[in-house]
């Protein structure tokens, strides 16, 4: 979210020179300008809307406890290092355990679910078999189903097989991502030309070899997207781990911060710790986006077949 936001600001700067060559042409005079102004203003507002809360977190995390509610909102405070060391010291550094748990759930979960999406999406796009469309339709229905309403049934199922409360109970439900499979299928259908697959078969390659050497590289940008989506979704997931887990050594960061906020009526909420914790929790996401972003530009190069 925070990373996607800067784009509109760029667009919202000065009216882009490209506008002049727009089909409307010079006779319209001021009209194209006015049209460009309105969207720019809207986008600028949108960017502000997205960025202000992030800025707030950034600035609030620099404030020591006494400054938090007493100084001006957007005035940086003096307590950032104090907050971070308080957070690290809280219950012997349980925060970093939560961070590691989140990394485990999001990293392994997103990898597994990307792999499943790649297999399933490729198969659905490349092979014709009976029931293909009905499987795909079921998946589509799954895309429309918010994961939130599945959390409780999933908990009851996990409890049946004795997995509730374990790390698997958080990992297994996220492995199968209908949206990821859907995206992978659409992407495979568009990016992996049948001709290439056919020529691979004629050259005597097995299906697995074709998938690995031809399909997978061509699907890579799509799979990166699936991975990122899943990673962010699992990292930010709250309800599933909340229902599944009871041992705070296994909590992901979302759940851990929630326990810091709800300490019962008699103990004041640990606002500064939660705010600093939230800031630190979005840093890995930003880093991930920056690192992985470059894979997206492969798009144009990887799937080109002249026909």
């Amino acid at each position, binding site marked *: 979210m925070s990373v996607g936001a800067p784009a509109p600001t760029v667009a919202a700067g000065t009216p882009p020179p490209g506008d002049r060559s727009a089909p409307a042409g010079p006779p319209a005079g001021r009209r194209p300008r006015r049209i460009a102004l309105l969207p720019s203003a809207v986008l600028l507002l949108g960017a502000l809307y997205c960025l202000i809360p992030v800025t707030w977190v950034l600035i609030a995390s620099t404030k020591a*406890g006494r400054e938090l509610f*007493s100084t001006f909102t957007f005035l940086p405070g003096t307590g950032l290092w104090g907050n971070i060391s308080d957070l690290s010291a809280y219950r012997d550094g349980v925060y970093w355990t939560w961070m590691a748990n989140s990394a485990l759930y999001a990293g392994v979960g997103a990898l597994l679910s990307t792999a499943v999406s790649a297999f399933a999406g490729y198969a659905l796009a490349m092979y014709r078999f009976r029931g293909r469309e009905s499987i795909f339709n079921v998946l589509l229905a799954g895309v429309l189903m918010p994961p939130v309403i599945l959390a409780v049934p999933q908990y009851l199922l996990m*409890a049946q097989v004795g997995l*509730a409360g*374990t790390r698997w109970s958080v990992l297994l439900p996220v492995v199968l991502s209908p949206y990821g499979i859907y995206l992978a299928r659409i992407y495979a259908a568009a990016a992996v030309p049948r001709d290439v697959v056919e020529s691979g078969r004629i050259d005597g390659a097995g299906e697995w070899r074709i998938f690995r050497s031809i399909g997978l590289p061509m699907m890579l940008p799509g799979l990166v997207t699936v991975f990122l989506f899943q990673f962010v979704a699992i990292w930010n997931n709250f309800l599933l781990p909340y229902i599944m887990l*009871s041992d705070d050594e296994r909590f992901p960061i979302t759940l851990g911060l929630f326990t810091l906020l*709800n300490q019962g009526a008699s103990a004041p909420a640990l606002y500064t710790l939660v705010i600093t914790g939230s800031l630190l929790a979005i840093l890995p996401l930003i880093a991930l986006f920056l690192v992985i972003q470059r894979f997206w530009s492969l798009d144009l190069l990887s799937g080109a077949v002249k026909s």
Partner: protein
Amino acid sequence: MNHRAVAVCTAALVSAVALTGCGGDSGGNGGSSSDASGPITLEYWAWAPGLEQAVALWNEANPDVRVVVKNQAGGDDLVTRVVTAAQAGEAPDLVQAEYQALPTLISNDVLADISDHLEGTGTAEEFSEGLWQQVTLGTDALYAIPQDSGPLMFYYRHDLFEEYGLEVPTTWDEFADTARALRDAAPDRYLTTFSAQDAGLFAGLSQQAGAQWWTTEGESWRVAIDDEPTRRVAEFWGGLVAEDAIHNEPMYTPAWNQALNTGEQIAWVSAVWAPGVLASSAEDTAGQWAVAPLPQWEAGGNATGSWGGSTTAVTNDSDHAEAAAKFAAWINTDPEALATMVREGGIYPAATAAQTGDALAEPPAFFADQPDFYEIAAGVAEGTAPAAWGPNVNVAYSTFNDAFGSAASARSDFGAALAEVQNATVADLERQGFRVAG
């Protein structure tokens, strides 16, 4: 090749399940520990800070019954969580539950009746009658052991009271006069605020006036939110808000912190745990606060209500209900355990003996000038009125927030808002399938 991939995947899945089988036992509910002679493990979901240190004392003294605390987020959400877990048969052996959550947990068949396990131990005598009645719901059963309580008191800025020549009010009439006198003397200050976002405080004030919001009558519930005592409380506060004698903004907001810190509000009706909150939200005013008993409806009375407080309960899913019940009684009555929780977590113990014990000999640091802080508190706690909770406190509370929120900001009649809370609560009980009398 295809087949091999499938085989690998299957193998991975199978080993995953097997792995979990060995390593993932969450303890407590496992069938393996039903053997009476071996050491058993009790799982305890709780949020109170300092609890772990007290549990460590138990584990040292009782190697056969090990208690494992699993820290949870406190409050209403934990109730939902526990009910869900109980539906799957996965509830822990012990849970921390607030007083008002007990009927919800009991009506969902989550809590075990532990009265048999504690028969003849005299646990009941350790607590004031008002608290004990909340964990028995007035029946012969026993569903939980009180842990901490939150008797209401009156906190005020002694320096500003002196400056404006105000007397500490002992009755609510004096309270109203004090509020008006302050407005006259210092138009930019308020005595306090009425917070429409804190239904728990309003419930406590109503208990002081004698309200019994939920009672049972045979097999049906009787809801008396819109009755004489509560109406009296609502009209009193509504009147003060309407004439602008007190503020009408909610508590626990940055603006409220600011108001306490700068002396824009100079008093706070709150529970015994208030020093902790004041220390974090009004840090600059350390040493300038004092505490007094809550103003009374009848001059010379000693009644108060409660705000907050929690219990330790045993669930029906526990295989070792007796051991769990013994532990629950121990942690909430043992002087050393309670002293540890007071020291580490700052709780106010429910057990009467502990309220005057050594652990509370010193006043809270924020009230360093008032050495008799806990003596006053113990005196107030004696008069704690019994509270009567029902299975849908959450509905009543959220309706309260909406109805009183708009009434407070419009400075309009609180009576209509109270009727709304009553109607919504009754309607919800009926919708849930409870029988409602009257």
